[in-house]
């Protein structure tokens, strides 16, 4: 399934794609710049997060998705929303809690979704919770035959949550078409990465799930895009979930309120020089993909767009107070319009075609018996007792241990022959 080198080369971008990446990075930054202005004018209701210097990640990875694919943003993924087709006004209005915003003022920031059209899932603040949710999206898409990929992001800090582990492990057992971008911006609020995760490369988290991973320079939008693209297509082809660590840096504080003085000045300076837009402009200029005219055109287009979007947002009313009481439950037919979109013959998943033999097959040992007719404990002591088999009732079949436990004999501590046991070294140190 992996593309050959030749195929990969063909994926080099078209001029339009190069320009798109540039446009979206600029748009991402401009949208956030506008929000900083709104924040200073006290027009933003809650906190304001920034992805300054991380735009290449949001833009490059989301750009690798197809229209039918699904994504769920975290707080620093405004760029991904823009690429997926969210108009800037929605983002402004979300932050301003306006009635015309996607959540009509009930939730803020990037907390909104669009299940019907854009295929966006809303995040919640609790870090990591999106991971199993997007794994579920991925397997539901596969079940319906849609050939979609689900993508979300997580921070270096968020990778320590329990739900990161449960979600990614579950996705791996399911070989879910799911791509997780780990944005390692070296800080989780005030805590540096070495205090959160004792790893050089956070991509190594993948090793706990036996899944593929990549490390990519998160400030290089083309690398980000190409890596994400390859991962998305591998996931789509059935290779299972993929983790991409994007190395970057959080240039501002955790949110607007935080001056982030705990970050060494030199560190910030180092990364400011590696601004992803500056780097990309240099590259594009040298590759003759961008000149002053084109750049001006793009800037003007963005300015005009954002002026319009901002006006719209500012003119939108605040939600009427009574609206607070509405919508806790979905009642009636109107509020749940989602119907499964089958893109396979649904009879495949209906009996009799769906029926299977309900047994486990264990490599090297065949299958056990099905469970029909079993009983379960209710009063814990009241179930029929299982007659214990005598130790040697069945003659041992000498199968290789390697197969059984799936372990490589070289790695196994202990003697196979008990006689040698005393002088063996005790465990492979790793």
């Amino acid at each position, binding site marked *: 399934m992996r593309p050959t080198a030749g195929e990969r080369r063909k994926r080099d971008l078209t001029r339009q794609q190069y320009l798109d990446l540039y446009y979206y990075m600029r748009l991402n930054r401009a949208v956030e710049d506008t929000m900083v202005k709104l924040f200073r004018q006290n027009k933003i209701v809650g906190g304001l997060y920034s992805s300054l210097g991380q735009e290449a990640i949001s833009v490059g990875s989301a750009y690798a998705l197809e229209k039918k694919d699904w994504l769920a943003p975290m707080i620093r993924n405004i760029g991904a929303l823009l690429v997926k087709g969210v108009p800037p006004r929605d983002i402004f209005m979300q932050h301003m809690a306006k009635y015309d915003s996607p959540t009509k003022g*009930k939730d803020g920031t990037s907390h909104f979704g669009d299940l019907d059209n854009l295929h966006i*899932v809303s995040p*919640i603040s*609790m870090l990591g919770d999106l991971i199993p949710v997007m794994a579920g*999206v991925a397997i539901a898409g596969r079940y319906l035959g849609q050939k979609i990929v689900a993508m979300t992001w997580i921070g270096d800090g968020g990778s320590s949550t329990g739900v990161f582990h449960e979600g990614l492990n579950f996705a791996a057992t399911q070989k879910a078409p799911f791509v997780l971008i780990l944005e390692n911006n070296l800080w989780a609020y005030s805590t540096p990465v070495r205090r959160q995760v004792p790893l050089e490369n956070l991509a190594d988290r993948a090793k706990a799930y036996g899944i593929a991973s990549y490390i990519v320079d998160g400030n290089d939008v083309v690398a980000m895009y190409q890596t994400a693209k390859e991962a998305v297509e591998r996931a789509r082809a059935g290779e299972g979930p993929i983790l991409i660590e994007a190395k970057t840096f959080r240039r501002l504080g955790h949110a607007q309120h935080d001056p982030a003085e705990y970050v060494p000045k030199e560190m910030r300076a180092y990364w400011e020089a590696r601004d992803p837009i500056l780097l990309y402009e240099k590259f594009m200029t040298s590759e003759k993909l961008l000149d002053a005219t084109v750049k001006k055109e793009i800037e003007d287009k963005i300015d005009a767009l954002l002026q319009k979007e901002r006006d719209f947002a500012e003119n939108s009313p605040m939600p009427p107070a009574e609206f607070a009481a509405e919508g806790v439950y*979905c009642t009636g037919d109107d509020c749940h319009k989602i119907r499964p979109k089958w893109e396979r013959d649904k009879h495949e998943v*209906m009996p009799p075609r769906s029926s299977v033999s*309900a047994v486990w097959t264990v490599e090297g040992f065949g299958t056990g018996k099905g469970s*029909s007719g079993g009983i379960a404990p209710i009063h814990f002591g009241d179930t029929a007792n299982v007659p214990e088999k005598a130790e040697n009732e069945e003659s041992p079949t000498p199968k290789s241990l390697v197969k059984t436990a799936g372990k490589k004999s070289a790695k196994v501590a202990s003697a196979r022959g008990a006689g040698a046991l005393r002088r063996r070294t005790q465990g492979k140190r790793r």
Partner: protein
Amino acid sequence: MASGKPNGNAASGNGSGGPVTFLEAIKQAMFEEMERDPAVVVIGEDVGVYGGAFKTSEGLLERFGWERVIDTPISESAIIGAACGMSYLGLRPICEMQFIDFIACCFNQLTNFVAKGHYLWNAPAPIVVRGPSGGGVHGGPFHSANPEMYFVHTPGLKVIYPSTPYDAKGLLKAAVRDNNPVLFFEHKFLYRRIKEELPAEDYTVPIGKAAVRREGRHLTILSYAAMMYTSLEAAEALAKEGIEAEVIDLRTLLPLDEETILQSVKKTNKVLVVHEDTKTGGIAGEIAAILCEKAFGDLDGPLMRVTSLDTPVPYAPTLEDYFLPNAKKIFTAAKELARY
């Protein structure tokens, strides 16, 4: 068996004829909903090959296959999260907690993600979370939970706790078809102790409706799940002393059927709430507040409550028996109440 019909012990559709257990009713509900709608899937620990720790999903894998009956790793948050994501594409996942106690491990996903989605982002998550709950079987402090109030206190969820096979089947089907996340607690004490003849045809029981199990005029006993039987037992004893208790099965705890409750109170003017859940913060309190608000004039006596003790569920039978409500405690409280 690869493509055959499930055998006698495995899941089957309606109408095998004889009375069925509570457990079998659950199994039938899942079976029939899966037959009806390929959007319905089952996900949980050991639900597939093993058929669930209590065998409630036995035969489902055999009939519906690996894609629709998903054995997961031991990861309750992943189960709930994945189900939520699946529901976003139109599926209707039924999640099993192997014991309902483990719902504590996915509390965040349930109360923050699943419960709030419709209100906040117009993203309803029609999932069902079900599992064996309750005590009385010496399961000890980690296999006997009655966690209903944690979720009754969480706007956006619905909470069902049935007491009969008929209701279990009809309410579970209603839960699967509901557009909201529904928690469905199955009292394991009832799994094999209660049998009932079920209708041959498809039916549902409406969520949010209580049922009057026994009519009476002297006082109203409100209860649900296993305590229904204890309450009815007490009511029989009370009847022998001339006290006719009306016994109401709440069935759904969120939303509560205030109408049925208030109607009964209008008649009896006295209310005793019986729940197996611990006392402080149990649903009796909520009912007390509702009665204050909506039926204060109707009350001739104080709302009284018979509940478990405010402790973890102890393991030893002597201790657990003392911990739980029983017919005698209900009888005593009811007699006291009747005196008002």
